[in-house]
């Protein structure tokens, strides 16, 4: 793994588990083809300057901190949990499964007497994030027994634990197990993190920054489309007023001076409402096209 290569290489940790599939899809959109063969922990990537390793998200930050990998993708929750000193390069929150914001929730059994974290003095709390939970309790001045849970944490109250701190993207596992949420302990999104020494290395830093730029650009283009249309100058105002404020369009001249072209980016979900309204307002030659990347 540490063999000297002729060309410099960036060692990149990809998260094994729930983040894996979306991560590989994200790399595809950003311009890197990653192939994982069954049982191999070294995925193939079509970039001679990158070497990939699959690692559990929980351990990523620690390995990146120690320099086993130059950079990697994991949730900020695991970075905080392991208290790893790493450099954050990009927030990769995206509207895809497992890449949305997740919340670590403090929850108790529905119908229990616990109303707030203060009621958990001296009680037992099961969680996968012992460090985060311990610090959260300390902030609230509560002393409780925090117990590591290997999983299936949501079924533990009330028999095996008084309360739990468990992760949820949609809240469905909380509802399914008849639990009541007392507080949000930590919010988290996937991040691209880097080893500090690797970041100080000129070549590696440039490579990682380019990677971060393209990953962010692919995320920015997710669920958005381009819209191009022509409109007569005296109808321009009504067309612009239909576009969402955040669209910040570009207006260009056309050969026919009475007309201008409007180019903009909108959310895909707005297309259905907007395109007919734009036509009614005087827009003609409306073209909707897919986007691959948006570099701000």
């Amino acid at each position, binding site marked *: 793994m540490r063999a000297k290569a002729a060309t410099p290489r960036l060692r990149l940790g990809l998260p094994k588990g729930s983040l894996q599939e979306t991560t590989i899809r994200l790399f595809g959109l950003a311009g890197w083809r990653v192939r994982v063969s069954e049982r191999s922990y070294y995925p193939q990537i079509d970039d001679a300057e990158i070497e990939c390793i699959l690692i559990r998200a929980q351990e990523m930050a620690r390995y990146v901190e120690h320099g086993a990998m130059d950079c990697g993708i994991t949730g900020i929750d695991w970075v905080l949990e392991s208290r790893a000193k790493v450099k954050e390069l990009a927030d990769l929150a995206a509207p895809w499964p497992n890449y949305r914001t997740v919340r670590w929730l403090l929850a108790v059994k529905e119908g229990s007497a616990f109303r707030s974290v203060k009621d958990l003095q001296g009680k037992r709390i099961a969680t996968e994030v012992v460090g985060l939970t311990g610090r959260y309790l300390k902030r609230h001045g509560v002393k409780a027994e925090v117990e590591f849970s290997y999983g299936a944490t949501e079924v533990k109250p009330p028999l095996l634990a008084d309360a739990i701190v468990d992760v949820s993207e949609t809240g469905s596992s909380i509802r399914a197990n008849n639990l009541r949420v007392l507080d949000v302990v930590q919010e988290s999104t996937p991040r691209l993190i880097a080893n500090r020494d690797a970041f100080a290395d000129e070549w590696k830093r440039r490579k990682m920054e380019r990677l971060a730029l393209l990953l962010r650009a692919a995320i920015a283009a997710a669920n958005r489309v381009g819209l191009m249309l022509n409109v007569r100058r005296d109808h321009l105002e009504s067309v*612009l*007023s239909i576009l969402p*404020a*955040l669209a*910040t369009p*570009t*207006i260009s*001249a056309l050969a026919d001076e009475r007309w201008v072209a409007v180019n903009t980016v909108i959310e895909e979900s707005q297309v259905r409402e907007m395109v007919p309204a734009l036509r009614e307002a005087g827009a003609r030659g409306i073209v909707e096209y897919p986007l691959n990347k948006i570099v701000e």
Partner: protein
Amino acid sequence: MGPVRGVLRAVRVYTKLAWWGLASPRLLERAPLEIAQGVIRDECGRVLLSVRSDLMGWELPGGTPHPREPLEAALRRELREETGLDVDVGDLVGAYVRTGFRPHTAHVYRCRPTGGVLRPSRETPRLAWFEPSALPQTLFPWYRTPIEDALAGRSGVCRSEHQGVAAVLAGLRIDLRMRLRR
């Protein structure tokens, strides 16, 4: 926005503008008003314009300095607030001395975006990049000269114009046009 609420809002805005443009400069303000505005161009040469939230119409983004704040610093701050962009403030295109309605001097600078992400604000609910040959009809007419000067590469020009009844009516016509198109 319903039509009645729209009219009420317009009446409120016009009352405020009449006070702001006609009475307050004569009654309350001692020093002549100085403002800073930027002609921001992207790499394709397009000009960034914003829509004001009170008197609606397209204009150059910018604003009024805080007490004792240098014009260029004020411009950087206002552009950051109104457009989300960080800019390099370049040379002064010119000073535009306007008398009549809301007398003021507008210092217009050439600006180059260096970072940030374009996003509208409460004061400037809409932003758009316009090719110089596709400036909107709803651009307030007194901005045409500064933009022309900037595009022609002029620096340090000094112009004065009187904002009389014609300018006020042109402004109102543009505002009404923007409101009625909704």
